[in-house]
């Protein structure tokens, strides 16, 4: 009997299921590609556009080979052939019929010789022309590029299976037939959610539990190891467990919530949209719509969050069933335990974390798996860093709610007291406009701080290890966090932490580190330098941090996750 569900709710937004993870035109001149478009997508008339462009240059028209538009019929399947000849790459329909309308760049032959191209598949609404779905498949024309891509994918796959850093897993009894499906909207290996997913994958792999990763947006090089979300309904069985990592709007969340299998939601928190709307309205809209989706958590067997702060946001949404307003940090109960062991969650959170409406399960709270143990064996890689002076380190995205401008204000105050102070920011510019604003500050208001400011957008893990080791202290002015993994990493590397007192940050730090409730840069700067110059004082700070780190480590070894998974699988057997 086929145990797969293979079913979609009627309201599911359209998508394309592609028969290949990539196209290989290195040796052959053409390759077939079958696209399945689920029946739910046919509520409104759609058409398909296949757009081919150089993976290294998506700018239109100079990077584009061309586009081909295909009408859809009721079969739900489109069979294409991607072919290469002296005119360049072409996309054709395999069956005879009306020729697609298309546009072909006069430079198509040259662009088609690029080693890696992207085949961008777009579904558009025939009435409004609106894009309703899009994803890209890599098309290799060069054997070396293909080999590199496959190597990258294999390396990533091996990281998921590495057992050296796997946590000690309790000996639970796991149903033989049950697979785990790790789902996230956006997957990036080095961000907090990516690390959580990879850690989880290793955890289950270490216990021989079959596990796969699904995402809506991810690096197409990884396709095959990371699967497109469209593959989930076909892959999931009734006895399987979906672990949905929720951190932003996901158009398929309703579909996921409706799948008749065991489901667990882990809430990483969502950035309140007002922090980012001026820099990225699209991102802000996604955040707002994500918050509106929180009540869907009711449809999951187990709901968990990365902190009490995040749990409170989730509980409010579940209690109200309304779109969720961004949580005011001041509303979070101060006496919530920072880390709650999943096995004790029924007692520890019984009064505060019950899901209010329609589901009597509590919101479990356990920290994300940070993969701390992986640092131990990782070799340091060389980095050019300031050779002397106080290096203040911040690790995290260059995002508006992280308040990099306040870090510059702090650096300014520090530089007044110690001209050799410098700020090292390690993180990607996820908001170009915000990055531009920070650059403008560095060119104007804080022009004098340019020599004291160092920004590293991308660092390898080995480089990051070097950075952590060489820095003097960790600082954050962030005004919104769910858990803040870099705090734990900073503690791991024995760096005193100075942080703005956001509730989630306070929760992660416990009674350790130095938190401040007002952004009085002069005061904070004095405090930092006092700690840095007084060995005994710094030692006291680090001793407290180490104690706190010990507590956290004891909670991130997988106990929490395993307990939650067990609860999801055997929900009916639990009577807490």
């Amino acid at each position: 009997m086929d145990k797969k569900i293979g079913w979609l709710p009627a309201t599911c937004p359209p998508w394309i299921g592609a028969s290949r993870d990539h196209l290989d035109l290195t040796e052959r001149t053409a390759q077939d590609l079958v696209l399945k478009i689920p029946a739910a997508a046919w509520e409104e008339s759609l058409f398909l556009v296949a757009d081919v462009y150089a993976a290294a240059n998506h700018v239109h028209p100079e990077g584009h080979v061309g586009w081909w538009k295909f009408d859809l019929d009721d079969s739900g399947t489109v069979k294409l052939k991607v072919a290469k000849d002296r005119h360049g790459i072409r996309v054709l329909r395999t069956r005879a019929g009306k020729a697609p309308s298309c546009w072909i760049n006069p430079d198509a032959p040259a662009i088609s010789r690029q080693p890696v191209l992207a085949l961008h598949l777009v579904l558009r609404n025939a009435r409004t022309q609106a894009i309703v779905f899009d994803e890209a498949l890599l098309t290799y024309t060069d054997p070396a590029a293909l080999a590199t891509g496959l190597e990258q994918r294999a390396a990533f796959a091996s990281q998921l299976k590495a057992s050296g850093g796997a946590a000690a897993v309790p000996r639970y009894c796991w149903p033989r037939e049950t697979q785990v499906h790790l789902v996230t909207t956006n997957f990036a290996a080095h961000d907090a959610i990516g690390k959580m997913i990879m850690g989880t994958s290793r955890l289950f792999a270490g216990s021989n539990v079959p596990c796969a990763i699904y995402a809506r947006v991810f690096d197409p090089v990884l396709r095959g190891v990371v699967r497109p979300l469209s593959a989930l309904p076909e892959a999931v069985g009734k006895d399987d467990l979906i672990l949905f990592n929720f951190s932003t709007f996901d158009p398929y969340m309703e579909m996921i919530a409706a799948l008749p299998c065991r489901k667990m939601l882990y809430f990483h928190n969502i950035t309140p949209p007002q922090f980012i709307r001026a820099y990225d309205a699209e991102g802000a809209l996604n955040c707002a719509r994500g918050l509106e989706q929180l009540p869907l958590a009711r449809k999951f067997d187990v709901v968990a969050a990365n902190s009490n702060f995040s749990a409170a946001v989730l509980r409010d949404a579940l209690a109200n069933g309304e779109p969720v307003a961004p949580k005011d940090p001041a509303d979070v109960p101060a006496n919530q335990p920072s880390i709650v062991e999943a096995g004790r969650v029924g007692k520890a959170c019984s009064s505060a974390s019950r899901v209010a409406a329609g589901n009597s399960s509590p919101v479990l709270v356990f920290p994300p798996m940070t993969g701390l143990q992986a640092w131990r064996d990782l070799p340091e890689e060389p980095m050019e860093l300031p050779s002397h002076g106080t290096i203040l380190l911040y690790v995290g995205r260059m995002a508006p709610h992280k308040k990099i401008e306040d870090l510059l204000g702090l650096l300014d105050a520090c530089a007044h007291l110690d001209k050799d102070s410098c700020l090292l920011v390690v993180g990607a510019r996820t908001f170009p406009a915000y990055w531009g604003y920070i650059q403008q500050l560095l060119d104007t208001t804080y022009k004098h701080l340019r020599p004291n400011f160092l920004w590293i957008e991308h660092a390898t893990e080995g480089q990051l290890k070097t950075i952590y080791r060489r820095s003097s202290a960790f600082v954050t002015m962030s005004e919104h966090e769910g858990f803040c993994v870099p705090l734990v990493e900073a503690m791991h590397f024995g760096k005193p932490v100075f942080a703005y007192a956001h509730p989630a940050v306070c929760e992660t730090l416990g009674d350790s580190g130095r938190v401040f409730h007002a952004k009085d840069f002069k005061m904070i700067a004095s405090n930092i330098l006092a700690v840095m110059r007084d060995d005994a004082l710094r030692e006291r700070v680090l001793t407290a941090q180490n104690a706190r780190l010990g507590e956290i480590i004891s909670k991130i070894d997988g106990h929490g996750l395993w307990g939650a998974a067990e609860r999801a699988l055997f929900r009916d057997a639990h009577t807490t």
Partner: protein
Amino acid sequence: MLNLGIIIPQLTKYGGAERLLIECVARWQDQHRITLYATDFNEPLLAEHGIAPGVVRSKLSPHFHGEHATLLNATLLPKLWQQEIGEHDVYHMHLWPTHLLDLHPSVWYPHEPLRAMHDLRYNEPIDESGVRPVRTLHVYPKPEYDSVSDSLHEASLDAIAGFDQLGRPDRIVANSKYTAAYLGEVYGRKVSDVVYPGVCPDDFMSPLQDSSTRFPDSDFHPGFHCDWAFRENIFLTIGQLWPHKRTGLAIEAIKLVENCQLYVVGSGPELPRLRRMAENLGVADRVFFLENLTNFELRILFARCQAVVFVPVREPFGIVALETMAAGKPLIGADEGGYAEVVDKSCAFLVPPRPDLIADRMRLLLNDQGLGQRMGLAARRKAKRFTWDRTARELIAIIEDTHRTWNRARASSRATKRRGRTLVGVQYYCWYGEGSGSRHWNDTPEYGAVTDMPLAGCYGSSKGVAIEQHLQALDAAGVDFALLNVHVNDQGIDEYEWTACRNVFSVADKTKSKLNLAVHLCPYNCQKEQMAKAIALVRKQARASSRYLRVRGQPLLGLFWTGEMDGHRQWLRFLRDSSEDFTVVACSLRRYEKQTEEGRTFGLFDGWSLFSPLDLGPEGEWERIWRAAYRQSGAGRQDLRIITVSPGYDDSHLQSPAREKNRFRTVDHRGGATYRRMWDFALAAAPAPDLVIISTFNEYHENTHIEASLNHGSLFMDMTADFARKGKKAWTKR
């Protein structure tokens, strides 16, 4: 320093009109004493923009809501507000319908007329379901529509249109030449004052994209250079989301341009329709609606965008255009409205409001970044000419000029034009109730007993018919002015008398009487607070009425002076400070004593008159006493010479013990001989008096009245007419 009263319906947001006012007040507050009047204030907003607590905030009655809200807000509300607004040197009103406040001198900055009544009359949205006969109306700054049933819609607008024309601000200032012409068309008067709104160029940050668009000689940050770059294809449109803002055109234009986004900043009733429109056009994934942004967020958006799209229907001015220029960004605007006067093709595309034409300009800018840079640079340079400093400076100059002109006009008003000519006036009592037995008509034996009565019967002082008769009689007798007696006690001003007093002003206006009027306050046992309020009411009346008697360039305030308060330095100083903008004339029971007066009344009075010269001494000494009094009557600061004449005196029927102290309670009228004797003295007086005051027109308790009565018929009115005529000849020669 002016005492400036500023009225605006609401001061809760940083919208166009409110922004202009806030920016101006922030710049005026150190030079002038300012009181802001509004139905509601946003204190954090005022604080954010530096409006100090010293600027007084005074709340006005809130707007009406409900079906007839528009009509009530257009007609009744301004009248309520008028009662709530205090006394100021000059009034400055913003927005519609504050011009209906009958306060003067006044400068009205309407921003726009009520457009729903004119160019937008047939542009308000109508319920499209076709089943609900409701129409909507919008009156700025209300954030929502008023609903009016279809059957009342046209009638309401017509009624409002009628009221609209009643406003008579002394000066109207337009925010553009376009608006000036529009206002001229609506109100039938030429509007020649134009003050453009402004912008703060320093508030804007350098463009946040593409280093190739850096301003090489940037005035954002001199010497600014960077080597970082990124590009965002964002267009921005800003404005309240009302139909006439035509935000939908920008959305339709975006549909025609690939690879770009539109940020719609603003809120309003159109929002749901615009969202629906974006969905239907398939651009919901690249049209974003943002509400309630902070100023900082707006600056970020200006810095990010390629250009600003602003295509409203005949916008009166449109500060967004100036902001766009200050941000160094090109404008894609409609070729109509006020802002078209401040931009040109170097910095803006002004196009007919069509999506395809807007889209063309968008594409042009996307394809030629250098063009955007050049236009932005030109815009930025041009914006520097339109600063808030300039707006505030030009507007306050008009306000100050209006105040000066008003004062000059008042100073040369009818009374002052007769400078050098003697004016004849009467003491006029406003205290009678209607009918015998009512107040002051034999209501008490102590004070209210009368032994004569008017030929017209026991009239009520507040009644228009009686007032009209009195005014006609006084006009016929050649009387120039009346001093309206109003009492002030420990309860404050006598409200009945004050109402009657105001009615006299109104009836005089209505009947076009020649008479000038002034108020004569009679304080009894009142405290400073009550007296200050009473003087404030008189001041308001004096400012509001063009017939208020002005002497030596200032409104005349009579003060009944018994002498009991002589030497009370604090009380006298208080009175002097409270009435410094009046010509204060004492109507005294005692003579002016030149040698000792300074120590008794401390320079309070500008002129001195005797209320009752007949009871100063025995009949045989009258002329000597009157001469002596007249020699010294050049009292006070203004050197006014005043003679009082009276037909006789008799209060012997009043039973009040206080009256018994008077040695001369009965001074026989002698069939007019006493009155003639006094007039003869007045006619012969040299130098000629400035004022001759008849005491009284209608004080029946003491029988000093000259009004036609049962006992005397019209004898004294006839004599008055005769003597006034003779006197004006005789005094003119002197």
